[in-house]
Each structure stands twice: as C-alpha cells, then as structure tokens.
C-alpha cells in the first residue's frame, strides 16, 4: 500500500490542463522553389477551447481543441513567362526551306511577381487527443541530448533537481487537415491580378497582354500547372508537400507527452522549508504511479529511497 495518495478531481485536472494548453505556441516557416513558381509560409498558432474527459478505463480524452492561427502568411511568387508577338513559320515552295519568323517580346526580361497574403482568418482546425497518464522520472544528472526536441516547446526550464513528472501521453491525435475555403482562391487571384496589371500600362497595351496570356486566372493556373481551384491546390501543398499537417501533429504530441508535464513531484520533496536556524526538511519519493477513473486522477507514491 502506498505511503502517499493524492487525488485530483476532473475539474482541477481541467484547470491544470488549461494552464498548460495556454502556453502552447507553434511557429514554423519554410519555402520551396518549384521552377515557375515559389511557395513559402510563415505561420504561428496557439490552442483554444477544448474539454477534457477522464474515462473509467484509465484513459483521458481531450476534445474540440481549436488550433487558432495568429499568423498564416503564404508567399507565392510567379515567374511570368515571356509575352511575345509574331513568330511562327511559313511554308515556302521547294527548293526553298521553310522560314521561321522572329518574335518580339513585351518585356526586356521575364518579370517576377509575388504576393504574401495572411490567411489566418480563413483557416480553422480542431484537434483531439486520447491517451493515458504516464509517470516519467527526470534525472538531473543525465546530460541533455545534443539536439533537444523540446527546446522550442518547453514552457518552463528543466528543474535543477530530480523530479517525478506526470505527462499526458496521447495514443491518438486527430487533427483536421488544412482546408482553405474558396475565398482564399479569390484572394490569390485578385492579388496576383493587381500586381501583374501594375507591370503594364493601361489601354491597348494591357488589352493585348491580357489577350496573350488569356486571363490572369488562366496565366496563374498555367504557371502553377493546376487544373483545379487555387484553394484546393494550396491545401494539398500544406498537407502533403510542406508536411505542415504532420509537423503540427507531432508538435502537439511532443508538447504534452515529452516536453511539458502536467504535474511534477520533486525528489526529494521538501516538506518543511528552511528557517534561520534549520535546513529544509526533505523526504525521498519513490515508486510513483498514476491512474484515473471517470471522476479523478490518483497519484500514489512511497516515501523512502
């Protein structure tokens, strides 16, 4: 039988989890050159909402947790292809060879355009976790890893002493895929149309350029090589090509399971503080175990080495 038993009800558990959840920050930036276009992102997110449910089978469920983007900038750069007039070949009677005409191009060099809208207001995702509570022992004498995966996720620095840590250990994490709405496609088209039209003077010049390229929308789709809507294309990039969905999934998992304990018990535990004449009284803690039922989390421990 354990020497010490501590029970934390579901409400208190929720409060502790809320404090931890508020400290979550996810930030990432990356870019790629895909030939005729370049795509990059600069994002930052935090967590809001959600409810925790302690279950009778010694597991927990954290559900309806919202991923809120405070910044979701997407930078799209396009290499506008040559816009030229003339050209083509004519068939001359034998023995003359066919003749191919020269072209005249509108720009001295192929122009580049780019836009960087912030799509934070248009994206919302939910994440839910199920798992169990686990105990991990932090040994201060063990040197930290050469590459610390928690360096950017840790809310508080590692303690200066040994500690029994209680972590949420998610076994399943469900995160909504990036799904940009139609309005995002319109935002990109409008933005690119504006910068392309700014390159060329109005009147007949612009009329001719737009005839050459079709419409700006056609031009964008040709450069991006996409048959579908821009918003669907962008969603695929975020979910697959950039792997941002998987990265966020891993970060959420690491945040709770590895980097930030829900509770910690110092070892040895100080039960009486120091006074002006006496040193603090500390007791060693051993064999810490944690479990939960539908109502509360129970921590049991032994006193002694």
């Amino acid at each position: 039988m354990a020497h010490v038993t501590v029970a934390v009800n579901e409400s208190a558990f929720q409060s502790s989890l809320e404090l931890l959840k508020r400290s979550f920050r996810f930030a990432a930036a990356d870019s790629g050159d895909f030939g005729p276009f370049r795509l990059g992102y600069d994002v930052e997110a935090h967590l809001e909402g959600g409810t925790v449910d302690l279950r009778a089978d010694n597991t927990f469920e954290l559900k309806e947790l919202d991923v809120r983007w405070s910044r979701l900038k997407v930078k799209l750069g396009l290499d506008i292809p040559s816009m030229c007039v003339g050209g083509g070949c004519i068939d001359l009677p034998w023995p003359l060879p066919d003749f191919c005409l020269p072209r005249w191009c509108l720009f001295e060099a192929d122009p580049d355009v780019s836009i960087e809208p912030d799509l934070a207001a248009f994206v919302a995702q939910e994440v839910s976790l199920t798992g169990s509570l686990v105990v991990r022992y932090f040994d201060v004498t063990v040197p930290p890893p050469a590459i610390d995966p928690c360096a950017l996720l840790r809310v508080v620095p590692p303690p200066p002493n040994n500690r029994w840590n209680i972590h949420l250990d998610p076994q399943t994490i469900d995160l909504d895929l990036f799904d940009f709405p139609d309005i995002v496609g319109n935002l990109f088209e409008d933005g690119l149309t504006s910068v392309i039209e700014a390159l060329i003077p109005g009147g007949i010049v612009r009329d001719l350029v737009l005839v050459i390229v079709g419409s700006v929308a056609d031009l964008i789709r040709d450069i991006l090589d996409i048959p579908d809507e821009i918003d669907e294309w962008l969603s695929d990039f975020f979910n697959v090509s950039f792997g941002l969905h998987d990265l966020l999934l891993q970060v959420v998992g690491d945040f709770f399971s590895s980097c930030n304990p829900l509770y910690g018990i110092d070892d040895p535990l100080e039960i009486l503080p120091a006074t002006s004449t006496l040193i603090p009284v500390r007791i060693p803690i051993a064999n810490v175990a944690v479990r939960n039922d539908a109502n509360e989390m129970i921590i049991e421990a032994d006193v002694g080495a």
Partner: protein
Amino acid sequence: MRPALNRAIFAQRVWDSGALTVLATLVHVFDEAGDYEIFVRRGEAIVHRVTLAVGRDGAPRQLDLDLAALPGDDTRCGCEGGDGYAISEPGLVSFHVSRGAGAYSVRVQRRTERHKEWVLDSAESIPEGDLFAVVLVRPGVYAVADKVSGAEARISVELPRGERYRMDEPAMVELQKGFDPSELRVLAGRAVVFRCQDRARIGIELADETATVSS
C-alpha cells in the same frame, strides 16, 4: 525592380521595307552559291559589315540577323573582322530589328574571282523572290502600298475580347501585279508576310486606329 517594357512594340505605326524598324523583317533568298558580303546601314552610316558563304556543306538553312544587336555604331562600322556566316544553298537570311527607334537598310554584294555585284539594296527595293513581314499589334485599319507598282491593299487588325489565341500563325500575301488578297483581316500580334514575285518597295501605315473591329 520592374522589368523594362519594350515600348517600341506598341509605338510603331509606320513601316517601310526600305527602312527596317521594330516589328519588320526582311528575308533575302540566297539561291546561288558563292561568297557574299553584307553591309548594314542605320540611316546613312554603315554600322556593320560581315561576310557570308552560301553553299557550305552542313551549314544552316536560315540565318537571323538582329540589326539592333550587331557590333558597330554610327562612328565605326563594326568591320573589325570575325568569322562571318555560312548558310546552305538555297538559304535564307532574315534581317530584323529587336528594339529601339533606329531604321536600318541592308546591301548585299556577291563577290567572284573577277567581279562583284549588288544583289540587294533594301533602301531601293526588295528583289523578286524576297519576303517582307510585319507584325501588326495595334488594332485598326492599315494601308499598304507598293511604291514600285502602285498596288494597294488594306489590312484590318482585330483584338478579340476574352479569347486566347496563338500569335505564331502568320498570314501570307502574294505581291504580283497587285496584292493577293488585297483585303485582309488578322488578329493583333500576328505577322503578315508579303512574298514579292516582282521587285517592290512596301510601305504600311496605320490609317484608322478607331476602326477597331471586335468580335
């Protein structure tokens, strides 16, 4: 930095086969093997001079010379030498102007062991068998005239709205005792190629810019 717009493409409204400018191309047919020399003039000054060998085995059938990009200027002719050019027999040499406001003419001299003769002086006329092409960009009605025969033609250039089309589909006009066809409708940005069956000097002018025919 904003890329520079090639404004000459939209500013040009008059063309003359005797004074080559942007959007115009003169094509000379070399149907006799031999050694030639090409003299390029801008205005009255010779700005470039180069040799051309016609009939060399394995040489290309077409040579394109951008008169605005050749070495040389108004003070010197760019005649310092170089390897010269070679084309097959028969072969074609085209002369065009890629940019700028200059007007150019070309003279070609054939040299043999015993004599030399001028086979082309574009400032005077285009010889029989040569071609003259112009890319018409601005919508409107263009007046075409041959100063040698007095023949005339009209070309209507259209700019369709909301329709994408290819620029590289030139139209052909034969010039032999008159233009055939004498009335032509083309889409903006496409070339019109005049094949001269007679000696000619062709002038083209945007006569009516407001008469845009739209679909």
